[in-house]
């Protein structure tokens, strides 16, 4: 029975290709981030490093954590955490960056 179930469900296995591609992209992005850190770009070093990290986080969220196939309510829950995190950082910086 187990063998039968295994054979029947083997056909339904989602493709592993996207996981491998995402993994290669993540490694490439990490290399890019590391390499760019040694270029004298002034404040843009931080902009590039944080920008690359944001892309990597999105890749993990969307492909590896299956937000691309998630139900709307799950996506809302995921987005809510980052939305409130963004609000916290935004309002905090609005204070610190405008102090005399």
């Amino acid at each position, binding site marked *: 029975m187990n063998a039968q179930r295994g054979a029947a469900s083997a056909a339904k296995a989602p493709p592993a290709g996207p996981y491998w591609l995402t993994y290669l992209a993540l490694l490439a992005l990490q290399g890019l981030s590391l390499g760019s850190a040694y270029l*004298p770009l002034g404040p843009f070093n931080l902009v590039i490093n944080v920008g690359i990290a944001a892309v990597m986080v999105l890749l*993990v969220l969307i492909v590896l954590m299956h937000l691309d196939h998630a139900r709307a309510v799950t996506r809302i829950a995921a987005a809510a955490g980052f939305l409130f995190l963004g609000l916290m*950082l935004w309002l905090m910086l609005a204070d610190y960056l405008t102090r005399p």
Partner: protein
Amino acid sequence: MAAEGSPSVASQFAGRTHQERAAVLGIWVFLATEALFFGTLFASYTIGRVLHPQAFAEASSHTDVVIGSINTAVLLTTSLTMSLAVRAGSVGWRGRGAAWLVVSVVLGLAFLGLKGYEYYEDWDKGLLPGLHFDYSGPDVQGAKLFFFMYLVMTAVHAVHLSVAVGVASVMAVLTARGRFSADYHTPLEVTGLYWHFVDIVWISLYPLLYLGGRS
């Protein structure tokens, strides 16, 4: 066999799909609170960096970029192996599922081992405030704040990874015993989501703690 391999649905749920959806939504709500929990640390780091930009850049060039980069690659690899484990488990491939989980656990332990060695190095170099801090520069207080944030953020991350390693170990045993099938694999799914979140935290920490002040 069926009873052992597919646990019954709890009474508050209409069916297995309902139960699985609730569990997945539940872990995402938990992860949202975790994002805010780590967010306070990122916020503290940001304030420190705004107030002491030079000291933070100078201090972050003293962390071990080689170990930090290797560890980042190790964690990215675990995200792949965990995805493959959940995929295998979700179609009832016991052997492959358990094997990928074991690989993830071993790599997670390798990360923790390297991190531990790095702490020893940091202690040796006098970079750990409160334990052994011996640092000279134009803004020692700012640098001290950086290393305090470095220690707290990486330690809290390590605690999370330790929990993930423990849960994944249990999942490896359950998968090998045939607890999960194409019909029932929610615990694997939830474990994978938590593992990936811990990876996301490190992806965010890496540029802030290891890549500053290198150029």
